[in-house]
């Protein structure tokens, strides 16, 4: 999880990924940031996040994103 948060910070510096739980709802992550995260995830973890998984619930916190990546990895 720590590695994952470090990766997120590389993509979007200046955000408290450890504690924020409404990243999308509060406008901290915008659509371009989400695309960059998806691109980085595909590069680092080899996991492709399909566009229908781009919903606020999956990107509102680092934990939710991590769980999504784990789910897709296990599939």
């Amino acid at each position, binding site marked *: 999880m720590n590695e994952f948060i470090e990766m997120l910070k590389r993509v979007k510096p200046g955000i408290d990924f450890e504690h924020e739980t409404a990243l999308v709802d509060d406008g901290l992550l*915008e*659509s371009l940031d989400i*695309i*960059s995260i998806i*691109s980085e995830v595909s590069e680092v973890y080899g996991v492709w996040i399909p566009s229908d998984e781009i919903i606020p619930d999956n990107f509102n916190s680092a934990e939710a994103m991590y769980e999504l990546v784990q789910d897709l990895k296990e*599939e």
Partner: protein
Amino acid sequence: MSVVSYSFLLFLLIVCLVYYIIPKKWQWVVLLAAGIVFYAAAGVSYLAVVGLTALVVYGCSLLMQKNLDQQALLLQDVDRKAARKIKNEMKQKRKRVLVCGLIVVIGILVLFKGSDFLIENVNVLLSHTVHRQISAWKLIAPLGISFYSFMMIAYLVDLYHGKINAQKNFLKYLTYVLYFPHITQGPIGRYDPLGTEMFAEHRFDYDMFRKGIWLMIWGYFKKLVIADRIAPFVSTVIKNAPDYSGPIFLVIGIVYSIQIYCDFSGCMDIVRGSSECLGIRLKENFRRPYFSRNMPEFWRRWHISLGEFFRENVFYPVSTSALFLKLNTAGRKRFGNEWGRNIASCLPILCVWILTGVWHGANWNYIGWGVYHGILICLSAMFEQPIKKLMEKAKINTDHMAFQVFQMLRTFFLCLIGRLIFLGNGLSDSFYMIGSAFSRPQAAYTMKLFVLRRKEWAFALVCMLLLLAVSIAQEILERRGINMTIRDWLGNRNVIFRGAVLLAGILLILCFGIYGAGAGATFIYEQF
């Protein structure tokens, strides 16, 4: 039947009465009948077009649902690896059905909205080669075709992704499509949650009903008292744009920005209010967009349902395709995170904005307007961080109210230029208006040039200030995180105050609304 007519009010009254009197399990039938009557009033032949399109979509939805049901059976007692394989295979089969459905829906949309534009441009090409011309078909598009087509597309895509279950009763599906408050100008309501809410049983809720009426009154105020009052000024100048010159075009841009906001958001208030009278909440389509501090924020607050549609159905699928993810990664490695991702995102953003322009109609002005906003969004993303750093260096407090007002005015100005592109009779007119707006006028301004009488302008200004005051109050409530609307606030006042506000609103609309031939008959977005 325009929502700005006495016949609509009578129609809504009858629908409400029947809706709440009959057994609740049949309420959806009332909505269906109301939808058919409302739509047929615009032309029975249009009803056939929307009915046939809905039938094709319904057929496709049943096929996809069958596939999803089979998938659920096959997924029982299999491991994750096998499940993934099954899901991919089944999704491929659904894709074929999806493509067929999309071809029909988009094909009909293009036939009605784009055929003349295509023929016109093919003729331009033909005139340079062979001297033959294709005659225009001059098809009249069914009412609200751009809106209901997008609802159908979203329905098929959601089914393809397995996000919703298909409606198995065709008449219920038709009820959702023909739902009279949203069919002509949106909001583009997704089947989930709207379908679920629409087919639930609704008891008469006095609080919701009266708030619906208040919202309708507010919408009629915006449309009849403000938008229709200032509309003649804009249309007179635009019709003969080359006859005018100078900063009058800036005034046109400002006035048209207010007019189109009052026109479209006024309509949304009327339709949302009338839907709430039936106990069904429609999605908010506007959140005071002129208080936006930058263009991306503006487009999250203006025509929200259309923006969401394009983001989910065009921007995300294109941006997350293998090609664009590779471009994103390569771009970020080459130019750093910010610049790399922004450069890689430019093409999907431009795709979205050209399509948004075309959605308004097949016309070079709309396409130009789309490209203009696409470029602005790309530039906004590219310079967001550099400007932020510059502000920090210059020790400018960007959260200060004065700076926020500056940002809002800047956003408004950028929109204003876009409005002039949108408004022109051809792109050459638009370029002339924009160029001329910043040059000296060739003739002296007189009040005659402004079409309306002085006191009409004064009254319009007072109404705009009232609109601004209410909007500021709502904005403050939202920024302070207070979960309350102006309607909630009004609902908490005593009965005398509420009655006085209601009466004042009705009198204002009756006495100062613009009525008569040619007035209040159409909405700007109805033509899209």
